[in-house]
């Protein structure tokens, strides 16, 4: 049924509009409230269930810090998010433009090996930040600013 709905002419534009609205609403919420203290932001399910940090733990707090203009604090929360965010923004914009005008932004065709390497890097980052060594714990959320 959803598929049929999505195949209706122009449905993708509505999806893009809804996505853009959600993004703006999310950004305003993140700018107003710090996920570190606000309490109503969703906990990371992985951290909640297992007690381990996942590769994305701290990404909301990092984005809050970015919206506040604190690059250093954002980096301390989740360096991976800070690195990936510009690329993700570009990719999202490209997808949105593609749906709206039928043509995305110029894009590099990533060889499969690169994507697998990126996947491995994300997984390794997730593992490393849980290792009980000081150097690795710097990768955990807030790790670098911790005394």
């Amino acid at each position, binding site marked *: 049924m959803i598929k049929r709905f999505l195949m209706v002419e122009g449905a993708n534009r509505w999806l893009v509009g809804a996505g853009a609205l959600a993004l703006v609403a999310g950004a305003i919420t993140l700018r107003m409230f710090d996920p570190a203290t606000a309490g109503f*932001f969703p906990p990371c399910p992985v951290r909640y269930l297992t007690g381990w940090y996942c590769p994305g733990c701290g990404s909301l707090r990092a984005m809050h810090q970015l919206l506040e203009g604190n690059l250093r604090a954002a980096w301390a929360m989740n360096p991976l998010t800070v690195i990936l965010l510009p690329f993700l923004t570009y*990719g999202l914009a490209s997808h949105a433009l593609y749906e709206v005008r039928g043509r995305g932004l110029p894009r590099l065709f990533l*060889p499969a090996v690169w994507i697998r390497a990126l996947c491995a890097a994300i997984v390794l980052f997730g593992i490393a930040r849980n290792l009980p060594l000081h150097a690795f714990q710097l990768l955990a959320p807030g790790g670098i600013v911790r005394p």
Partner: protein
Amino acid sequence: MFCTQCGANNADNAAVCVQCGRNLQPGAGMPLPATGVVMPPGTAASGIAIQNYLVFAILATVLCCLPAGIPAIVYAAQVNGKLAQGDIAGAQKASDNAKMWCWISFGLGLAVTVGSVLLFMAGAITGLRPH
């Protein structure tokens, strides 16, 4: 089927793409070289030939904090791998799988978010009650 030039969705028996006019009959147009190619026809111009959903896969992994994003990234890699080999059908299949895992991850993330907000509201309401 999806146009190999602009990525538009066409009827399976379409002769030419409704969007860009590319000949969609088998054997038409540039054949995809077998190896060493990183730029299948159309990807440079449109950015999307067969979507690999990599952006959403990474978003799902890093922002939804969910392991369901990992298979999405693996399938995204498969899409580009098969495209480079000229295996359009295989790429389309991997693309569908990548999309499915993105949606699974997004759905789980949404469920956790809604649950968390509800729990917070319930906590706030019960917290107001005098003991």
